[in-house]
């Protein structure tokens, strides 16, 4: 039930509706719970509703923190396309 995913707003429609792009799959969702969503924003989609917006700056900060961990623990650089676990 808690599974929700970040998706990019690909199209804004009337009545608080939008089309989101989920890695190529397009789906109509409701924006009734989040104000001022713009085209291209990332929202977290759950049971057909955007329940919040995703903050790209904060996402970058978290990724930068991970990059720092990688540097401090291992001097060898990470491969640019390392495999997902």
């Amino acid at each position, binding site marked *: 039930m808690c599974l929700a995913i970040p998706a990019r707003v690909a199209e804004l429609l009337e009545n608080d509706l939008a089309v989101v792009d989920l890695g190529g799959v397009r789906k109509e969702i409701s924006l009734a719970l989040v104000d001022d969503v713009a085209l291209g924003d990332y929202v977290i989609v759950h049971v057909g509703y955007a329940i*919040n917006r995703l903050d790209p700056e904060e996402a970058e900060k978290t990724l930068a923190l991970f990059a720092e*961990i990688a540097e401090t623990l291992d001097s060898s650089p990470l491969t640019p396309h390392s495999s997902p676990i």
Partner: protein
Amino acid sequence: MKYIDEFRDGDLARKLAADIRREARPEREYGLMEFCGGHTHAIFRYGIQGLLPDCVHMIHGPGCPVCVLPIGRVDNAIELARMPGVTLCCYGDMLRVPGSGRVSLLKAKADGADIRMVYSSADALKIAQENPERQVVFFAIGFETTTPPTAVVILQAETLGLNNFTVFSNHVLTPAAIGAIMQSGEARVDGVVGPAHVSTVIGSRPYEPFSAEYHMPVVIAGFEPLDMMQAILMLIRQINEGRAEVENEFTRAVTRDGNLKAQRMVDEVFELRDTFEWRGLGWVPDSALQIREKYAAFDAEKRFELTHASVADHQSCECSAIIRGVKNPLDCKLFGSVCTPDNPIGSCMVSSEGACAAYYTYGRYREAQKQDQT
């Protein structure tokens, strides 16, 4: 996909695991409860448990809405679905949960009841609009993530003047369940991994009393494996340093205050129930929501005069103890023999986020091997 793949990097996960191994003190035990079923699923799917040192134990909490709904409420839903003229709409994972006498909504559907699986509360509203001759009931379950969408459709039904749409509300509250676990003191919990998406709605503030009152570290974590491992590392650091704070690893979606618009809509439509029965936790005061009198016309419990009866779980099923974090799925004698995802006896095996289903799908051989070795 963006904002997903970057948080699944295998090399980084191994480095985080090394960091955890270095910081966790082998002479002590760390019992970390992941509250949310989404985290349970992530732990097993990505083999996170296998990357942790032996002194770090993940305990699965009551954060799966399908798992915590007691049999009596499932019976209520089946009773509703069997009423003449009623169409019951529900999320897919509720369909196979056994009620009394192992009758599920799926069985009731096979017997002729009009039960529709919906992806969204909006789909249920649409079915009501398209079928004015039917009484359409939305079987609403879930924590703070699914409650706002239910509030939206009740407000929309009022605007539309629909008189054939009601909601059977079973919405429950995360902080109340965490409080019940803390209060019982049954499970040995040293730190809590706070839910990801629930927290996007309610924010991090509601966890602050737990840190203060129970000296319990809480780290809110996203659902991707790196999020989870980073949160485990943050919890270990807090425990080692004797701190008990609410920290937020999932800053890309969670703020201290959460989604205020969603909270306002929920508050407009719902109010606290005095008490609510949970599978595993029993009756917990102020732990669930009911529809306010103002919107009573959309309350299925009132329109259909439902009464709740407490029904005991299957006597050999350990779901209750697993939900409380006291037992592990492998402690249940039904696990993997009588009870499987294809033939679930208890709720923890039904939902993919249930601890038993996660163990069965991703971890049963590894766990069994580990037990053989000890």
